[in-house]
């Protein structure tokens, strides 16, 4: 029971990730009409369009005059993450997250973390790749990242059959295992970078309560985006950096209950007056 509780968000996240893939898969194979398409663009209950705003940005840079459904769909998703979810796409939806988490787990098991050769792979790299995606899209007239995106490859692979895409996925796994800790999601992925940018001011956030904190640092140990928890043991405040993916691992590992989800802006004033 306590194990379940300690992993409640992890379980919910996996359910969410697998559940979405399952619905997409069911739409393709059995014709279910709940969630059709894939993470590029989908149709919810045959009415509500949802589409990947980053792909739409690239396509617009490529000079495409896009269909209305696509623009509405991208608008809905942008609004959702900008207002509510932050970078939640990464930890609650993206299937690559399961691959990189698996690599991370194995890494801990094999104790690769302890021997890692510390070369510097900047966490800003993803923003450069993001910019590069848009520039290359404009030059070549096609959505550039979509040509190489492991997210699209894995997502389509799971729904429509994997093909040679397995090599790309294995590449990401091995890179995260032997190359760099959280190498793909934490450093390279431009989609993660994109959601960091649009989710910067989203409402649902992890909040740190310094009075309860025992400075055991378990949370920063587990956090895939270490720098976002810079306030631990120092100040009571919200995790405001856009890079936080709301995965809630820190909340789960904290034994002194010093971290929890909260609604930013609403509760900021309250805590300020305390």
């Amino acid at each position, binding site marked *: 029971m306590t194990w379940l509780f300690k992993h409640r968000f992890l379980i919910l996240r996996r359910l969410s990730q697998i559940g979405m893939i399952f619905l997409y898969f069911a739409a*393709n194979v059995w014709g279910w009409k709940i969630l059709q398409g894939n993470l590029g663009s989908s149709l919810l209950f045959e009415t509500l369009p949802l589409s990947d705003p980053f792909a739409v940005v690239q396509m617009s840079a490529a000079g495409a005059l896009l269909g209305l459904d696509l623009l509405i769909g991208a608008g809905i998703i942008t609004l959702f993450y900008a207002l509510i979810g932050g970078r939640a796409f990464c930890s609650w939806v993206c299937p690559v997250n399961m691959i990189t988490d698996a690599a991370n787990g194995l890494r801990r098991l094999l104790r690769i973390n302890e021997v890692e050769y510390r070369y510097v792979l900047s966490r800003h790299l993803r923003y450069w790749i993001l910019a*590069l995606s848009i520039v*290359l899209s404009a030059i070549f007239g096609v*959505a550039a990242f979509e*040509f190489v995106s492991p997210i699209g490859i894995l997502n389509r692979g799971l729904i*429509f*059959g994997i*093909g*040679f895409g397995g090599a790309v996925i294995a590449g990401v796994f091995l890179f995260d295992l032997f190359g760099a800790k959280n190498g793909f999601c934490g450093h390279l992925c431009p989609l993660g970078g994109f959601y960091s940018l649009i989710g910067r001011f989203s409402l649902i956030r992890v909040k740190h309560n310094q009075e309860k904190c025992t400075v055991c640092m378990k949370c920063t140990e587990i956090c895939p985006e270490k720098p976002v928890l810079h306030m631990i043991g120092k100040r009571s405040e919200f995790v405001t950096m856009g890079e936080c993916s709301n995965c809630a691992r820190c909340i789960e590992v904290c034994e002194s209950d010093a971290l929890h989800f909260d609604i930013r802006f609403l509760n900021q004033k309250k805590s300020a007056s305390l």
Partner: protein
Amino acid sequence: MAKDKLPPLNERRRFLLQTLQGIGLATLGALTWSAYIDEASAASLVLRPPAALKEEDFLSHCIRCGLCVEACPFDTLKLARAGDNIPIGTPYFRAREIPCHMCKDIPCVPVCPSGALDESFVSTITKNGDKELDITLAAMGIAVIDADQCIAFWGIQCDACYRACPLINEAIVIDASRNDRTGKHAFMAPRVIGDVCTGCGMCEKACVTDKASIFVLPLAVAKGRAGSNYIKGWDAQDENRLKDQKGGGETTLTPKSSQKPIDYLNSEEF
């Protein structure tokens, strides 16, 4: 070690070096990436769903969502996977495997959210102003016949493609001609009418030869272009173009043309 003797880098130098390193890496990345895109977007021998924009625009519009693939009741459409040598994630079909069945309601087209499949390409306006889907307007490609391997051209009776064609006698017709070799048989050779053929590939699927002797090629590959310098004398509209030509209306005089054409026909040996 020599490394130990080097003086420590000062902040400015470190910054400069890091910037250079960044620029170097970015250039390298951009170069490999663009080489890949260039190659991946060059596949020209691929058949797209009906009503697709022309290949270049299609590639910039398609978001690779697969909604068209799911809508297709015959499993004709597939999304390209890594290694298919088709821009990854985009829908295509292989006529010899599963051709397009030319559904009347064209389910794959209206679901496309991106405009990569354009309904207006396969719609007509009816008399009372309604839009009506018409799959016969589709132009996925054109069937091409290899007359050397098509056994109908050998004089063997076969009309598999003709019978399979959803636009029988419109998109494929049979030309009968005398078989001089035997003196008492006929050749019954198929011929594709390019303007009518939709490129659905039913004929390619039906062809009985080992490798299909009639096969669909994308328009951009199968079609020639005559150039604007040829003018059809028998086409009244085309004749108008003469007026727009540079030096249009001028008559060239050569020794022969100094005579009236009618005299020429009457006097010269012919």
